[in-house]
């Protein structure tokens, strides 16, 4: 028996060695290939990234999340594309704007879908109307509300023919807007504005559910396989009009939803890119990666702020809000707590949109002023001392990073102002529900821009019941400025109006800005030309391996 046992055992050992050996050999082969390639300067142009999760949908009209956006941005192309922070013509060859800034006429270039069909103006008209059609349940239909009657059609109050998008001929698209929209060319680069191959979509309404001959796109890459919850493989689209400038031949998108694994895979050579915007690096690893000089950091259009419920005492008092806002040491917070190279925020609109906002509207960690405002606020509330102020509740959604920030701010408020703070956390959906229904005192929230215009951040607080306001704050002057800015055709004047509005916001402080978001990532040294926009979107069409 002993003999037999040991035989079995050694068989297993041999088997495991064999398995292990196979692994080892494969790896060496790959490494060998790469080295040989280096010498001939003939590096395989194959990119491997991690997109973390299964996208919600790869139909441009249905997508409403960043993962879907990441994939669609490579496979589709809108009228414009964002490069170096500015919209550039893409599927459109030229455009004209009417004097009232309400009508755009786009001339399309000669381009083809992945199956060889020509890209026509009808494809754009079809796609936009499809997304607005209430029976298609597009959650992002509101991105198209800028188009005349877009909202009315989506709400069932107008007909499809009333919508202000019309194909004049195969190559001419006329778009009529509800209001002058100075940032409309930014919007046309957004995925909800991408075209859809109307010939296929009308024939096969399920074209977008899987990769296959019916999944046609018009961008630099085409989707060749989509294993749900596992991976997506893109290959260069030879039918793309600018194919000669697309150097990557293949993009392999893994769906690994674990930050530590993502970094390990990168360290082990299984990924060429780890971190944002497609994935995420573990927060603990950032200081070390920075020390090693590997970390890439780029500011993006996002603000982390604390919302005050301005209808609940003591936050109905502006001076209390000011005191709390001024008493946060953002620099210390960013350097010692979040450690992601974030930028201290003393303004609402990120510096990617208003560069001067790096400085902001008030001084960081201004404890003196904070104390003055606190005294004033207490007096107005009829309280003698800060001890009479009941403890305030700071809410956040359950997450390590948010918890650390909350504890740091709790400490600052206690130390600087003597205010007692209770922390309260809830699971994300529960938390969001509480915030939207006004069941909170102070709560954290982040806001990321959808398109590169300050209105994206300012219009949140335009209406008290604006859906994303949450603070119950409203200011008639602020509101008027924003409404007027939509009609202003002079970009400089418009910018001034928006700045004036922001000044009001930063004086009344329904929100206390904390920091501006940054993207942090690591990448292969020889990977070049990846375009990460100020919104934190990634484009691989100009990327290549050296």
């Amino acid at each position: 028996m002993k003999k037999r046992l040991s035989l079995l055992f050694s068989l297993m050992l041999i088997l495991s060695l064999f398995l292990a050996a196979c692994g080892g050999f494969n790896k060496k082969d790959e490494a060998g290939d790469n080295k040989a390639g280096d010498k001939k300067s003939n590096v395989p142009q194959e990119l491997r990234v991690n997109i973390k999760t299964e996208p919600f949908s790869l139909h441009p009209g249905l997508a409403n999340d960043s993962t879907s956006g990441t994939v669609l941005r490579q496979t589709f192309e809108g009228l414009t594309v964002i490069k170096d922070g500015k919209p550039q013509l893409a599927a459109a060859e030229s455009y004209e704007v009417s004097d009232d800034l309400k009508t755009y006429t786009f001339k399309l270039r000669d381009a083809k879908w992945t199956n060889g069909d020509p890209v026509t103006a009808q494809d754009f008209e079809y796609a936009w109307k499809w997304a607005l059609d209430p029976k298609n349940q597009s959650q992002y239909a509101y991105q198209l509300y800028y188009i005349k009657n877009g909202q009315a059609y989506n709400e069932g109050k107008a007909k499809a023919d009333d919508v202000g998008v019309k194909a004049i001929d195969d190559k001419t698209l006329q778009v009529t807007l509800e209001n002058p929209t100075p940032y409309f060319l930014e919007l046309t680069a957004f995925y909800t504005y991408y075209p859809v191959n109307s010939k296929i979509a009308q024939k096969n309404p399920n074209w977008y559910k899987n990769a296959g001959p019916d999944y046609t796109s018009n961008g630099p890459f085409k989707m060749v396989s989509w294993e749900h919850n596992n991976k997506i493989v893109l290959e260069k689209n030879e039918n793309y009009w600018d194919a000669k400038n697309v150097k990557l031949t293949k993009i392999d998108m893994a769906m690994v939803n674990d930050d530590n694994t993502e970094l390990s895979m990168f360290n082990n050579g299984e990924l060429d890119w780890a971190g944002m915007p497609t994935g995420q690096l573990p927060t603990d690893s950032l200081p070390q990666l920075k020390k090693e000089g590997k970390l890439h950091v780029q500011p993006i259009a996002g603000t982390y702020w604390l919302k005050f419920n301005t209808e609940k005492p003591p936050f109905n008092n502006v001076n209390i809000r000011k005191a709390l806002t001024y008493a946060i040491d953002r620099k210390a917070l960013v350097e010692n707590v979040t450690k992601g190279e974030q930028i201290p925020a003393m303004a609402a609109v990120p510096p990617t949109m208003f560069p001067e906002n790096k400085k902001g509207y008030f001084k960081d960690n201004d404890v003196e002023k904070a104390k003055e405002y606190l005294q004033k606020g207490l007096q107005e509330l009829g309280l003698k001392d800060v001890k009479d102020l009941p403890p305030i509740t700071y809410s956040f959604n359950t997450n390590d990073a948010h918890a650390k920030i909350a504890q740091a701010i709790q400490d600052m408020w206690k130390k600087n102002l003597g205010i007692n703070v209770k922390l309260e956390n809830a699971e994300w959906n529960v938390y969001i529900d509480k915030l939207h229904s006004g069941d909170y005192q102070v709560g954290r929230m982040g806001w990321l821009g959808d398109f590169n215009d300050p209105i994206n951040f300012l219009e949140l607080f335009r209406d008290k019941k604006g859906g994303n306001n949450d603070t119950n704050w409203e200011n008639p002057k602020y509101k008027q400025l924003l409404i007027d800015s939509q009609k202003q055709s002079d970009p400089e004047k418009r910018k001034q109006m928006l700045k004036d509005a922001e000044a009001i916001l930063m004086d009344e402080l329904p929100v206390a800005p904390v920091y501006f978001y940054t993207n942090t990532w690591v990448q292969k040294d020889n990977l070049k030309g990846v375009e990460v926009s100020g919104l934190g979107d990634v484009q691989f069409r100009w990327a290549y391996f050296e």
Partner: protein
Amino acid sequence: MLRYISRRLLYMLVSLFLIVTATFFLMRAVPGGPFSGEKKLPPEIEKNLNEYYGLDRPWYNQYFDYLVSVAKWDFGPSFKYKGQTVNDLINEGFPVSFFLGMEALLLAVSIGILLGIIAALNHNKWPDYGAMVFAVLGISVPSFIMASALQYFLAIKLELFPVARWESLQHTVLPALALAATPMAFIARLTRSSMLEVLSNDYIRTAKAKGLSKGQITVKHAIRNALLPVVTYLGPLSAGVLTGSFVIEKIFGIPGLGSQFVLSISNRDYTTIMGVTVFYSILLLAAVLLVDIAYGFIDPRIKLAGGKKGE
């Protein structure tokens, strides 16, 4: 035997009904919904969505419809992944979890039993201590640490296996090991202690007195009896392992059903929660039933209620 099984099947249906009901109401009691997000949807769009998915209808209508669709084995569309039905998610995710689970189960049972027997036969000698140290480690190290350690040592340091993803057989080794560690250790300890108990029994002494070799005694008399507790443990274990582990699937990026189940809850993906819960419940109930039936074959002393002799 048949009567026994049919009665058990009836109980299964009742338990399933209770599970479906409890899950339905618990799920709806949790705040938040499938469409609540950081950027709040315009009310008109949300209303339209609620109408489409039938969430605006009275709860009893939704509940009744749900019971009907469970009976038809059609769980409806997923809220989180447009264009995929919950049946798709189960059909795609379960085979992956099942494959990984089988691999882990095989590893756990074969190595676990082997270690247990070796330890018992060498009671209080070094192989015994070695095997039991191994077992204690396996039980006490949480699976996410085990997984990260395996990734670090076997993938990054020794470069034997890839760190993560689900591509080839090689990719399955590390997650299967991580998944198998705890049950393997548990089985090893279980086998060892019951083996020791069996070995001290009179009939083993009789066998020895008859002049049987140690090998014959072990295989023919000891192991068969010693495995009974292992079989008991196997039922819930296989249901747990085959349905996939959220932690392991997350760490290794495996497109299995375990991660879908947990994510569907935080996404408030109502249809997926219900579908996967029902599916899991059936698996678990079936596994328990199978174990009870298997008892009868392994241990002739246990007779299934309702069974007649010779049946």
